């Protein structure tokens, strides 16, 4: 994305505030020119996601792109039970990042170590989950909306929520709906970017 924008604006500084997993979609903030100064502030902004997780199956990446590593039958889900479990994750919580993640361990990206087959277990990190709302529970599926601090892994949240429910799980869909004051409904489609940048330039 950064490379694309860099090409489009032809020179100048370009940077992004917060990565987005390859299987996910939604808001990605790309700053250009003098706005790049704000990146350090923007990366700290709270984020909001809409997600769908599935229980009873998990993958090495904890998302739909991974290889199935475990299957475990779970009891039929009770909506109340899921909401109760979700409440345990709201507030300041300790979270162990997924093995497939962009954090550095010993100067190396963790996902590179994971791909090589020998991922060390990353240390738990303190994150804040401001709100976790269960939207729908059907079959082995939970749809939810979560708002959280920077550095929170929704894949890890899905993993941990499944554990509390006595099974395993993975994230099948994820959409980032918000970063700070920037909402998904105000975002531009990637395909609309070239035209947008062109029209801004002509002003």
């Amino acid at each position, binding site marked *: 994305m950064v490379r694309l924008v860099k090409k489009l604006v032809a020179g100048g500084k370009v940077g992004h505030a917060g990565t987005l997993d390859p299987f996910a979609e939604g808001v990605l903030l790309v700053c250009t020119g003098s706005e790049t100064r704000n990146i350090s502030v923007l990366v700290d902004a709270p984020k909001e996601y809409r997600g769908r997780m599935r229980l009873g199956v998990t993958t090495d990446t904890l998302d*739909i792109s991974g290889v199935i590593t475990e*299957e475990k039958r779970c009891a039929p889900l009770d909506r109340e039970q899921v909401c109760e479990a979700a409440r345990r994750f709201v507030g300041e919580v300790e979270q162990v990042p997924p093995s497939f993640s962009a954090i550095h361990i010993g100067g190396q990206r963790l996902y590179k170590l994971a791909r090589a087959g020998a991922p060390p277990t990353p240390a738990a990190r303190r994150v804040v989950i401001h709100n976790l709302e269960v939207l*729908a529970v059907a079959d082995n599926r939970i749809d939810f909306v979560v708002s959280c601090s920077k550095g929170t892994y929704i894949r890890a949240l899905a993993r941990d929520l499944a554990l509390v429910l006595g099974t395993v799980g993975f994230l099948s869909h994820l959409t980032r709906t918000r970063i700070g004051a920037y909402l998904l409904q105000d975002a531009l489609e990637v395909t609309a970017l070239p035209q947008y940048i062109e029209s801004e330039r002509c002003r």
Partner: protein
Amino acid sequence: MQIIWNIHTFPPSDSSVVSLGTFDGVHRGHQSILTELKRRAERAPAHATMITFEPHPQLVLQDPTRPQQEVLTTIEEKIEILSGLGLDRLVIAHFSPAFASMVPDRFVIDILLNKLHMREIIIGHDHAFGKGRSGNLALLQKLGEDHGFAVDSLPPLKYGEEIISSTRIRQALQEGDLELATQMLGRPYSINGLVMHGAGRGTGLGFPTINLKPYSQYKLVPRPGIYASRSRLGGRSYDSVTYIGQRPTFPDGERVIETYIIDFNAQLYGQEVNVELIAYIREDARFATATALIEQIKQDVAKSMELLSSH
């Protein structure tokens, strides 16, 4: 069709004609009840309203020492099928132990009368609900007299000499009698799911398959073997061959569903696919050499294409 997930927060509505049941599989017997429901709702006129239970009550009430109960339709599949039947509303009643122990009178008064303003109810011949299954036809008739609604129970529908039932269809699928299951369902048995990374065995043999994970672990996966199938994705339907087998590495006998979509080449990971099973071709078998297996797969593909062109 309006879908009501939480009846408790649903505002009281105009009058309705109601049908009630788990309707697993939405087979031809269920379909005939729903056709009648629609007809009577139009005559009233009132909202044709179906109430179903999720999860399947037998999953919630199951004796853990008995073999795992499985379902013909997940709730997502049931919604899709019911959407095509022209009902006005579908109420999905969350089935929990607390719900199961509710006295039927309360359910009828609080939900059916106060929320849905039921004027008439149509149930299947064997339906019973509520605590100890005491919510049967006799009780409904008594409540109907007290509260002024009509009650009707439809006789079972038969296929040949046999009564069409979800239990019979499950049994037929487990035995590999796909023909009987298809006839009783009134459509091919199908499996909705997500394409996930599997072992990828087929690719090395020249027949890349998709590894389908059903939406629910309780989804009934039919008898292992090779099936001629149709795969629906992105609004289109493709001829395919489906292998159902036991995965040896998983202790609780989790089945794998691998589908080879004929003349189709695209990455489908993470996509939603619906596989309709059209005909049972043969049993799962072991082959001494890869060449023998490839030869057999070629024959399976040819056989499938032949069968699919006549179905």
